[in-house]
């Protein structure tokens, strides 16, 4: 008998199951784009067909990190920038879990930038949602890695001299096999993209544009947005790296010129996930590690059998 019976349960799933029955002591301001992510995620879950109890949501620190307080599933609210390493190991220990990681642009592209690059490179089978509000929300409005050049804040009084980071391009060059951008103001697209991202077998990166009406008042509220898949002006093959790359650059340039391009930018369905790669080299067991501790019949190998080489 499995020790994890919530996993693989086939039943009708209702989005309301993902709402905690107690008022979370979370902190989102009225009008915050983060509510859009929450809503889209709850809507996507029934589409993906995963229950709250087989889902692990790992978040970082920031307003964005509070997603796990508003969302009922197994959750892990970790530390600033480290959601990805926590999440990817959980997935390795129990690959049957649906693992989603989430955090802000400061969290994921700043302090956790190194992990972002490496998790994408390894192509772990998981979804990573970055709440991109171009600002540090929780610490009260400092310049973030996605803030535009010239952005003024208490920590950059003369305006930032830095070019903003290019998250889509960064994900692509690092090795992510699914890259998309959506916006809180576009709930239908957001739901579809999150569904696709979770169903994708590999590292799916979703740059989620979220408005921060409290600290980023000048920021465009990401409307009107253009869905690159819906527009006749943009024709490219999302399975082709170089076309995808070109399109991402267009979108990244356009954003700071007031034109919001969203949609799917890259989807490689052929690249094996990290788990598959590791299993193929014999470096990872087929059975989830986590199950083994409950299996009475499992024969635990012991170090005593290794001692011959020390005699």
């Amino acid at each position, binding site marked *: 008998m499995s020790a994890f019976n919530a996993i693989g349960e086939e039943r009708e799933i209702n989005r309301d199951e993902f709402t905690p029955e107690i008022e*979370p002591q979370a902190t989102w301001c009225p009008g915050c784009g983060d509510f859009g992510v929450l809503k889209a995620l709850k809507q996507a879950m029934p589409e993906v067909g995963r229950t709250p109890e087989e889902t692990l949501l790992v978040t970082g620190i920031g307003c964005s990190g509070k997603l796990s307080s508003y969302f009922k599933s197994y959750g892990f609210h*970790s530390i600033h920038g480290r959601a990805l390493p926590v999440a990817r190991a959980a997935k390795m220990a129990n690959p049957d879990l649906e693992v989603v990681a989430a955090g802000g642009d400061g969290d994921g592209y700043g302090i956790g930038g190194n992990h972002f690059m490496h998790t994408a490179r390894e192509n772990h089978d998981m979804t990573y949602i970055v709440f991109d509000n171009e600002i540090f929300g929780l610490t009260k409005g400092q310049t973030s890695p996605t803030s535009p050049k010239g952005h003024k804040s208490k920590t950059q009084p003369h305006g930032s001299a830095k070019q903003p980071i290019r998250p889509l391009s960064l994900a692509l060059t690092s090795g992510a096999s699914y890259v998309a951008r959506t916006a809180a103001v576009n709930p239908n697209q957001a739901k579809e993209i999150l569904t696709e991202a979770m169903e994708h077998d590999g590292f799916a990166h979703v740059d989620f544009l979220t408005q921060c009406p409290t600290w980023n008042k000048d920021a465009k509220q990401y409307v009107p947005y253009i869905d690159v898949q819906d527009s006749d002006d943009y024709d490219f093959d999302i399975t082709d790296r170089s076309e995808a790359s070109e399109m991402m650059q267009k979108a990244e340039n356009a954003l700071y010129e007031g034109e919001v391009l969203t949609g799917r930018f890259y989807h490689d369905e052929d690249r094996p996930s990290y788990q598959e790669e590791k299993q193929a080299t014999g470096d990872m067991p087929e059975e989830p590690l986590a199950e083994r501790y409950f299996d009475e019949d499992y024969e635990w190998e012991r170090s005593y059998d290794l001692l011959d080489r020390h005699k």
Partner: protein
Amino acid sequence: MTNDELIWRIAGGSGDGIDSTSQNFAKALMRSGLNVFTHRHYPSRIRGGHTYVEIRAKDEPVKSRGDNYNFLLALGDSFARNPQEEAYYGNEEIKPLTENLDELREGGVIVYDSGLLDASEIENFDERVEENNWHVYDLDLRGLAKEHGREVMRNTAGVGATAALLDMDLQYIEDLMEDAMSGDVLEANLQILEEAYESVNEDYEHTHDLRAPTGTQEEEQVLVSGSHGIAYGSLDEGCRFISGYPMTPWTDVFTIMTQHLPDMGGISEQVEDEIAAASLAIGASHAGAKAMSGSSGGGFALMSEPLGLAEMTETPIVLVESMRAGGSTGMPTKPEQGDLEHVLYTSQGDSNRVVFAPGDAAECYEQTRKAFEIAYEYQIPAIVIYDQKLSGGHQTVPEDVFDEEPNPDIGSVVTEEDLEEAVQEAGRFKRYMYDADGERGGVSPRSLPGQKGGNYLASGNEHNEVGHISEDPDNRVLQMNRRMSKLESIRDELAENADHQTVYGPEDAEYGILSWGSTKGVVEEAVDVLNEQGHSVKAMNVSDMMPFAKDEVTAFLESVDEALVVEMNATAQFRRHVQGQLGRFGEKLYSLLKYDGNPFEPREVVSGFESRIGDDADLSQYNVRIESATGD
């Protein structure tokens, strides 16, 4: 000269195969029934530069590298001759001979490779030889190796010559070679070994009377390092996930684990940095695996924040801290015990973790098992701290130390049946349930993602019973008290079920020596010497650093007039910890400190003790320092 111990030193350049040769020779000595202890000295440099390995073999238990040594095999540094590198390396060719003479005992034996080294280049060599009654054998080991095989095999020629000079049975060495090599390489090595053996016997007159001691050890022994102890302890305790980033000397454990984990159905991950390494261990453990990570000083500093996360979310993990000399990157290949306070107190808020400091390879095995057991039972991070000396030094350990059943028990995790009955609140499991009457020792029930009925939020922010972030003052106090109370429960459990502190020497001794970690063996040898010399001394080595073994250390200190605290750091961290934990004994404690990058030798502890209690002992020849606790 007495023949009761052989301390054989093989010296040469890094990368010249000194390590593997010495491993084999140490095993040959062990197979002949002797106890063996090895000491590695090497520079932080990959190829070239002077390095040596010392092997001490005795019929009696051997617990330290000993004082000085009595047999030198000087091989010559092949990399010093690399013509392209000449400007950089300079002329270091002769170092394997010159660098080692100061520590060679009177009457000692020197074998040097005259194919590479020229003793006439050394100032006053002949005078020193005569003065110290050394016995010198110059052999063209390089020539011999080249004649029958390749130049690198000059190590083998050196071992053959050693065996002849010490009158050893070649069979042990030949058997080991047969295990390790095959084909032409084996043939060539065997031939070189025998040629060297015979030519020494035929062409040289043995002028010394040092012989390999005879071994009578009948129990099956294995030659392992402290890192093997830790790795094997982890495996036997069901650890099947390790994540790490290389850093000397932690890399030893990481590599040993990685060699075995895939074949044992486990996972090893080399990741982008140490923050990731510790975070992965947390993620794997959260999802239901037994997981570990670790590092050395600088890397462990990076783990400080995830360590706190593990404390707060009550995610069990085991971290290994393998100390090298600090601060900052310090001396990568040299031992020190300078990270104790770092490990005890690093991270946010009031600290709450378990710290064990094993003193030898067998303790590394036992205490690592205990660390996992406690971590998973009490949902708390546990740290095993040891040092570069114990990490890479090998010692003979009875095989049956490792003959313990594997333990896959995942600790205080609930089952789905338990969850059916469990207390829920608002559709979530009370993962962080208060322990009002303290019945569960501060431990709350833990579910794993994927278990039916167990969903909760693990948060590094203060949280309520179902895991939701909470700044409610009453909840804060209840949760803090519950988490902090675990240490008292663990202290009780350790007092009942573990005996990690070792006392050595006559029970009613007048004086005490207190040590921790790898200084254990050297202190015990010093205690023997001191008692033979008419002093009255006993020793205690402490392993339970947090929770601290309060009762045992108090009893020890109460029973002596005064105690010398021996440790390898500059600021007496352990002594400060003892005083802080016990809140007394300031007037009784003196420190003997060493932090020059080399482990203590027994004679340094002996002299340190003698100088403290008023005898006429000269400490100026050593890099050690005495300091009193009260500052008199």
